[in-house]
């Protein structure tokens, strides 16, 4: 039925193949659940708070049952008070705990910018590293079924401009678990960017507690003609596009950045030095996006490898329309990546 369950449940299961060992298959959301569960079990300093974390829905299932298991001092519902909650998490982190604060929509993070940007992210720097702020802010971007301008934003690009904030955006279940664990272990504020359309993605996820270094990208598909750097959900579209490109005789290398700040410069330079062409796919609006940052980086550090101008495939610079017709026109898809990539290689 419409909304909440809607769009995501209608999506095809997307299975991301990679080199990961193990044959246990989990969904992205279950991988996250496991990461939180194991982190709570491993470290008594970890706690989770946010609107609805202990209710029947449990943030799309990612926190379900954790209150029952760890008690209401470690997993609890909160008032709807994003800015203060962020500061409260930061304070708790300063005092030695490891909070995970959850916003069910990325849009709501905008209410917490003061505490996130002016306080949590700068604190260690302002006090010469004497106080640490090891907190995780989990946010989920939505999309589809008329979520509209205030319930579908992907503002990771905007937040890349914040010194002191680490940002990760895992696209596979394996990375979701590993990066959540890294984010919790990290001594800095880490923004954990999810996309609702990834929650159903499946892939191999080992049972053990493992982490993925923040700042390391990964090549999802090797290729020679063009580098496609994709982030978050756009990885799924990029991989579909790469299949189509292959049929059209174009070999695309798909780089999944995983971490947005800091991001893996080496992997981009290396790939572009091989392909000479760069396309970047981002889930946010084009201007001031993650794609913009990667493009600027390529201009600075990979300019002589580039045979062609860089191309960005992003949402247009308009708020998200609610209308289904306009929504469809608004979001870029594998078709757009395919078309732009083919043009870049052939023209």
């Amino acid at each position: 039925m419409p909304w909440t369950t809607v769009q995501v449940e209608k999506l095809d299961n997307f299975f991301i193949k990679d080199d990961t060992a193990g044959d246990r298959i989990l969904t992205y959301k279950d991988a996250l659940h496991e990461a939180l569960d194991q982190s709570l079990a491993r470290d008594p300093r970890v706690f989770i708070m946010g609107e609805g974390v202990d209710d029947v829905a449990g943030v799309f299932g990612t926190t379900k049952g954790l209150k029952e298991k760890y008690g209401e001092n470690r997993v609890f519902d909160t008032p709807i008070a994003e800015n203060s909650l962020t500061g409260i998490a930061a304070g708790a982190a300063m005092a030695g705990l490891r909070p995970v604060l959850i916003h069910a929509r990325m849009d709501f993070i905008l209410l917490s910018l003061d505490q996130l940007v002016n306080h949590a992210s700068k604190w260690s720097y302002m006090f010469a590293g004497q106080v640490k702020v090891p907190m995780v802010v989990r946010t989920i971007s939505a999309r589809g079924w008329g979520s509209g301008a205030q319930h579908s934003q992907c503002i990771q690009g905007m937040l890349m401009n914040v010194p002191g904030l680490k940002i990760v955006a895992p696209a596979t279940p394996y990375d979701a678990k590993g990066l959540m664990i890294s984010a919790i272990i990290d001594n800095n504020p880490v923004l954990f960017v999810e996309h609702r359309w990834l929650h159903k993605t499946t892939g191999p996820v080992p049972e053990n507690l493992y982490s993925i270094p923040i700042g390391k990208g990964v090549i999802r598909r090797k290729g020679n003609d063009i580098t496609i750097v994709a982030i978050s959900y756009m990885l799924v579209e990029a991989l579909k596009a790469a299949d189509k490109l292959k049929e059209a005789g174009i070999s695309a290398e798909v780089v999944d950045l995983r971490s947005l700040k800091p991001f893996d410069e080496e992997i981009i330079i290396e790939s572009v030095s091989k392909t000479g062409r760069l396309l970047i796919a981002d889930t946010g609006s084009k201007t001031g996006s993650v794609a913009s940052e990667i493009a600027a980086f390529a201009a600075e550090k990979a300019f002589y490898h580039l045979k062609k101008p860089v191309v960005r495939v992003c949402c247009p610079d308009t708020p998200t329309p609610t209308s289904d017709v306009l929504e469809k026109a608004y979001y870029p898809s594998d078709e757009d990546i395919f078309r732009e990539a083919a043009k870049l290689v052939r023209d």
Partner: protein
Amino acid sequence: MERDKLIEMYRTMKLIRRIEQRINDEYKYDEIKTPIHLSIGQEAVAAGVCVHLRKDDYIFSTHRNHAQYIAKGGNIRKMIAELYLRTTGCARGRGGSMHLVDTDVGILGSTAIVGGNIPLGTGTALASKLLNNDRVTVVFFGDGAADEGTFHESLNFAAVRKLPVVYVCENNFYAINSHQKARQAGEGIYQWGRGYGMPGYRIDGNDVLEVSEYARQAIERCRKGEGPTLLECITYRWKGHIGTVDDVGDGYRPKEEYDYWLSKCPIKRFAEFLRIKEILTDELEKAIDEEIDTTVEDAFSFAKSSPKPSTVELTEFVYVD
């Protein structure tokens, strides 16, 4: 209260109920492709407050805005067309159910960000004061919004500057699935009004007469330049937070609680009152029902037969001239 105002409130409540029930019934056909938040059970608040407002007064509402839009006199055809995301909708289909607008009757838009409307309504009230007109603003919001900083900061500001604004909290106890008790330890939202230096009252939000009486006084205070009021109206939503789900039993709201509130139907109660006063007769009820049926039927067929926007519109209105 005069007879025609009593009938108007009754008519408004019934119109809200009928429209909401119709939306509820139509939702399953997947043509309303946007989240909806129904106010069935909460009709008395919007009806009781808006009956005292002039066309040029302002209201600001939330994701749960249908009732207020209707009560303030918003265009019903354009409202339903907006739910169907058509070009004839009040926001040309780009806003949807959570973002209704009708500038002709003082509805400057509504927000899906909890607490986001409270500063905006405080701002229109500031404008009324600076422009020296006697327009009043009513801001509607849920109990959840009282968690937000915007609520506290706005009330403080409005009280300091004696702004003509009435803050109307529709306290239905729940924010999605979180009970008020999990979010607020205090004795009541209305007391914050007093804390910030304005009258604050807790009233029965299912009693349209009580709502209307307190709203009348608050609006009069505004017009006389005596400043803001906070009204906490205790009410209950019958449907789940979003869509057409019923979130009763099994980890959600207790069935007994739900049944109790069903028995406190604001419309049934008011109808009984009007019948005792011999204001509502079978004849009048039939006439009102027929008129409402026509309005609702007309709006839904208008909406369904309207065109969808074309993709060239995507980038329009990012900036205006």
